[in-house]
């Protein structure tokens, strides 16, 4: 979504060890934002905001209309597991704080601080008012929300991320320390806690509202509550107020005249005048062509643009296409569990490295994705603070894209497996051609074409590949879920994606390669990828058993506040991953958005939506 900041999706990372009370330090941040072209003129309104009326009344501001493919499902943030719903709620509720692209905390409702990275103090602003007669927002509301909803057992409200507020299965102690402050006492040091989507972007409901449903654990009642359905409790807590929600059509929010940020002095000037639109509308336009047409005709202010359509918008005066780096990686995943046709070979890092030589990553980025992606070499994007060029081994680009080297690598390392080269083809023990089953996610032409490219590349090194496209849900159910199929109980299990050791826990349907399942690389809190890299990781559906002992490395990286030590450890982790090639890291995606060319504010950087309330329309 063009303006969707999805903390859960962007994920956690880096250390934000900050001194207490940092609101005022953000005034400096405002200066840099101003230089970037978002400065608000002194006194507030300007020609860019729309004409000021002669009678001294409020200036007229333009409306912002964003086109989206799908609509919201709910306005109850306790039930939100989709980005469109979260985007709409964020118009009326600011959330605790934002994270800047520089990974600084930008206080909105609250600031968070710590001395040693274990106990965090959250301090609320004093002018936060609920709507619908619920009074002032206090620490009492937050503590009640956290303990009675987020940490409730059973999870009566169906809160999608109950694990966020637990450590080792136990609730994180939370204690009120004042009318407007409370402490979060982590069981161990976690320097990246403010960057995790736990307090970052967290919403709250009034205690008085929750109390009506908590005793009977009435999720249905809460879901259907009128105040929840219309965000009536939002009061002055967001830049916009709920106006109407036409399901399947439009969500309209109007400028909130009582927005709390207007009364505070510790934020940059442009935040106090925000937002710069009279209304913000999410218009649901399911068909891609219609969205692009509406952008061209000026009926939409912004909408996502697929890479295949950027060309149509280039050269138009009224439309400006911007490209934002993202943290989602596309990988070619190898099945190293026992139900693959080539698993004995794929378990060997040397074989995986040989296969990585065979696929031209640059060509996929340039020709299939039309340049709208970047080549990936490890489980971090290159813009990440934790990415170190000199630690990462590159495959599939320049000299490291070579069918000859791939063949040599395979020939040299297939020896201890049932496979071998017979002429220029790879055969099994019976002398039959090895054919790999590549399952790809349907719905994206780019993914399908990439699968075809991979099949051609593998054919060139003697491996046949059969392609089969499936719906995402079917891939998950048939190939990603795996369970113990051998005798007796599994020695261990790590959930539906990792039912146990790779020799005994296999998926319902056999597979060799999967394409089209993207992984979040969590550049802010890279320790979140642990589950991908250790044998017992909850998401290790591909049966990867690393040669490097990643567990202790992650422990070391997450338990120290020493920034240099963390950096060194993460660099070692990402270097080792690039060398072991648990899967072929292909590319990092981008988000492409088409804007009305008068829109000022969005910067082409990761996490660009954090200050979307300060964006405006600069009509000449």
């Amino acid at each position: 979504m063009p303006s969707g900041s999805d903390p859960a999706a962007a994920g956690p990372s880096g250390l934000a060890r900050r001194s207490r009370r940092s609101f005022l330090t953000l005034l400096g941040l405002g200066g840099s934002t101003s230089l970037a072209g978002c400065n608000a003129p002194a006194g507030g309104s300007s020609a860019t905001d729309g004409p000021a009326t002669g009678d001294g009344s409020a200036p007229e501001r333009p409306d912002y209309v964003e086109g989206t493919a799908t609509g919201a499902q709910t306005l109850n943030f306790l039930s939100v597991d989709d980005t469109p719903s979260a985007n709409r709620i964020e118009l009326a509720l600011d959330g605790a704080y934002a994270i800047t692209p520089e990974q600084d905390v930008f206080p909105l409702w609250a600031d968070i601080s710590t001395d040693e990275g274990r106990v965090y103090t959250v301090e609320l602003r004093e002018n936060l008012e609920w709507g619908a007669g619920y009074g002032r927002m206090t620490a009492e509301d937050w503590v009640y929300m956290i303990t009675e909803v987020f940490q409730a057992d059973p999870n009566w409200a169906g809160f999608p991320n109950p694990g966020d507020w637990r450590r080792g299965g136990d609730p994180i102690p939370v204690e009120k320390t004042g009318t407007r402050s409370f402490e979060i006492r982590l069981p161990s040091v976690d320097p990246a806690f403010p960057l995790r989507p736990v307090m970052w972007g967290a919403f709250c409901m009034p205690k008085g509202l929750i109390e009506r449903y908590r005793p009977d654990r009435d999720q249905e009642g809460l879901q259907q509550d009128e105040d929840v359905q219309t965000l009536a409790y939002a009061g002055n807590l967001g830049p916009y107020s709920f106006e109407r929600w036409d399901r399947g059509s439009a969500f309209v929010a109007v400028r909130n005249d009582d927005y709390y940020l207007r009364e505070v002095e510790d934020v940059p000037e442009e935040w106090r005048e925000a937002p710069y639109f009279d209304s913000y509308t999410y218009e649901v336009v399911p068909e891609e062509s219609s969205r692009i047409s509406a952008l061209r005709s000026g009926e939409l202010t912004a909408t996502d643009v697929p890479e295949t359509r950027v060309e149509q918008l280039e050269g138009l005066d009224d439309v400006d296409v911007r490209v934002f780096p993202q943290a989602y990686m596309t990988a070619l995943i190898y099945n190293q569990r026992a139900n693959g046709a080539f698993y004995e070979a794929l378990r060997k890092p040397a074989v995986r490295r040989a296969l990585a030589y065979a696929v031209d990553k640059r060509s996929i980025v340039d020709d299939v994705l039309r340049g709208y992606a970047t080549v990936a070499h490890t489980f971090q994007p290159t813009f990440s603070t934790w990415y170190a060029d000199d630690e990462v081994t590159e495959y599939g680009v320049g000299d490291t894209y070579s069918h000859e080297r791939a063949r040599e690598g395979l020939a040299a390392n297939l020896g201890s497996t049932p496979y071998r080269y017979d002429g220029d083809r790879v055969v099994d023990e019976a002398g039959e051609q090895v054919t790999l089953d590549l399952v790809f996610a349907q719905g994206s032409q780019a993914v399908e074409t990439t699968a075809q490219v991979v099949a051609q590349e593998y054919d060139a090194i003697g491996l046949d590949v059969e392609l089969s496209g499936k719906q995402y849900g079917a891939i998950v159910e048939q190939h990603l879920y795996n369970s113990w199929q051998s005798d007796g109980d599994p020695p261990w299990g790590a959930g539906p994606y990792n039912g146990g050791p790779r020799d005994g826990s296999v998926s319902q349907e056999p597979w060799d390669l999967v394409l089209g399942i993207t992984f979040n690389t969590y550049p802010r809190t890279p320790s979140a990828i642990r589950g991908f890299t250790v044998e017992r990781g909850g998401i290790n559906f591909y049966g990867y058993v690393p040669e490097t002992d990643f567990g202790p490395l992650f422990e070391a990286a997450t338990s120290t506040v020493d920034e240099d030590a963390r950096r060194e450890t993460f660099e070692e982790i990402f270097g080792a991953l690039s060398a072991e090639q648990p899967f072929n890291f292909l590319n990092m995606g981008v988000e492409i958005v088409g804007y009305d060319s008068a829109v000022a504010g969005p910067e082409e950087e990761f996490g660009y939506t954090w200050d979307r309330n300060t964006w405006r329309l600069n009509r000449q």
Partner: protein
Amino acid sequence: MKRYTARRIAWAGVVALLILTITFVLLELAPDSQLARVQFRAAASGESAEAAADAYARRRGLDGPLWERYLEYLANLASGDWGWSDTRSQPVAEAILTALPYSLMYTVPAVLVSTTLGIAIGLYSAFNQYTKADYAATFVAFFGVSIPNFWFGIVLLLLFAVYLGWVPVLFDAELARTRTFSLANARQLALPVFVLATSAIASTMRYARAEALEYVRAAFVKTARAKGAHEWRVLTRHVLRPTLVPLSTILVGDLLGVVLSASYLVEVVFGIPGLGRLSLEAIRRQDTALVLGTTLVPVFVAVIGNLLQDLAYAVLDPRIEYGDRR
């Protein structure tokens, strides 16, 4: 006739129950993409996939045995409660009643236009067989049948909305709801009606032409002409009426086709929040209550439509009657 009608309506109830049951079970068996995403996201960020699945089931009302949920649904349905749509956060009945007017706004004009023009052009072609006008009408018919609605809609939007600016690209649901009979609403409905009518007009026209040709040279028509009947009278009284009997069978089918299949595509292209998109989204998001609710509507249209069609036979053709058995 009464007994026949009652029996048909009772049978409709059985059919509806059967379809509901099958739909309910199929939805349960189908892989749930949203659940898969929720679980994947949880597992990928180091959370428990099982806890995420439990929370999802709790939110979506899927946390009980299948039979228990089904019986509860039927009990609620019997009391007039169609359930709660989890993916729209509103009662299913409200969702359908909100969407229905949007669908009717363009399907009713499209069906009226296509039926009237289709029959008229068909009769004209039959009366002027193998003339230039007949060939032109046949071309229009084949064009309408052949051209995909989806593509046609996109091209028309580009031409009339983007380049000429005569109509808006986006459908304004608020405008349609508050100023239904306004010029502005007519403007935004013009293209959907045109696209839908173009495809529906073709089949009606071809059927009307074929049926009318059977009667144009019939003995009773010649007799009417010999007795000095005016061409208009021959057309409307002697050809149109017998033509309408078989034609009425395709009208119900047409209506269903328009509402059920064509409307999906038209509503997606033009962004109209009608019944087609409602049911499409319900299926995509596996919103059980909403899928069942939107399934009941076409079942009702099909069963009642067919009943009305059978009853229309008797009105149009005096030789047909549904005598009650004694």
